[in-house]
């Protein structure tokens, strides 16, 4: 594989694994979210993330050789490239919302940049994905507005403080990122994207009267196959049936 192809695959797996693993966590709320109408809205968001992962795995297939189900459900834990923040248990609704908000702003920043990627297939896929991601941001913001307006900001500020540093790690530079920046496939390096994300979150949270959290990157290493203790049980659930019956169709 050429250096460029290796770099492209790194980027795709980082994006796809983030979406798959977080989508998996979000989908676990289906059936018991805090309110029925909310359950419906959030389940669609979860489905979108998983569908986005599938689109990105399809782009990865010619580079990696494995088809989307094999990539999503057939790799060993150390082969996944998601940011660690995505794999944590959803805990409670406050944590879920904090992670949802911070992640979706980050996703908006990086996808916004990738829309002008010189890699045309990726740029096209990203512009389709963004049409659905807009709803995710609207949803997260509506919750922030509603909760802070009703005096329940404290359920959020603690969770935001916990999550912010870990979402920062989403922007951990990829190993071969220079190659992609030079070719314009990654229009802006991750360090710049992180700064833009930080600035947006600072300004938005302040506008809701929420304290600005510490953005120092925490739980780094996800892009290099580092995993947290939360990953193993997730991986058993996610991949168990697929791996037990190799080659079976469902």
């Amino acid at each position: 594989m050429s250096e460029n192809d290796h770099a492209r695959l790194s980027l795709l797996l980082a994006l796809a694994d983030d979406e798959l693993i977080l989508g998996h966590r979000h989908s676990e709320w289906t059936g018991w979210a805090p309110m029925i109408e909310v359950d419906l809205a959030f389940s669609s968001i979860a489905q979108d993330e998983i569908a986005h992962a599938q689109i990105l795995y399809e782009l990865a297939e010619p580079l990696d050789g494995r088809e989307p189900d094999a990539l999503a459900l057939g790799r060993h834990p150390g082969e996944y490239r998601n940011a660690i923040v995505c794999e944590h248990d959803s805990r409670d609704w406050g944590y879920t919302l904090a992670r949802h908000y911070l992640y979706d702003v980050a996703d908006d920043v990086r996808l916004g940049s990738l829309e002008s990627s010189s890699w045309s297939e990726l740029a096209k896929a990203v512009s389709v994905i963004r049409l659905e991601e807009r709803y995710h941001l609207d949803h997260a913001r509506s919750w922030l507005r509603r909760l802070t307006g009703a005096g329940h900001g404290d359920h959020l500020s603690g969770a935001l403080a916990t999550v912010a540093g870990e979402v920062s790690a989403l922007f951990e530079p990829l190993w071969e990122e220079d190659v992609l920046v030079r070719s314009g496939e990654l229009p802006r390096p991750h360090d710049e994207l992180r700064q833009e994300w930080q600035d947006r979150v600072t300004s938005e949270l302040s506008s809701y009267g929420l304290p600005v959290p510490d953005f120092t990157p925490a739980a780094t290493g996800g892009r290099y196959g580092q995993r947290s203790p939360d990953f193993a049980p997730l991986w058993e659930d996610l991949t168990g049936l697929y791996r037990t019956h190799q080659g079976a169709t469902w």
Partner: protein
Amino acid sequence: MKVWEVFGERRLAEDPQVVGTILAPDLEMALLLARECYFRRGEGQRYAVRERGTDELHWCREDEVVGGVTDKSYRRPDGYVGVGAKFQRVKEELAARGVAPFRP
């Protein structure tokens, strides 16, 4: 919490019809929640909500993406069009494999 009537519009020329109701605390959340409660299969191009007991319809954004854009056939009838024929094929395949139909 309030009750909101949800209106759908199949084609732009038609009068909007009530398709259901939801509970939501305010207008912004009502519009947000109504979309995935009643339009996640793209049943219509635009939708509106009205707080029960009031007169005003509030429409979704002009450029609202109703029903998603990525492949959602997994949740629509068009994703399962071939299932009837598949049943026949499976029957034949099983017979060829020597798996007999069960008879009491």
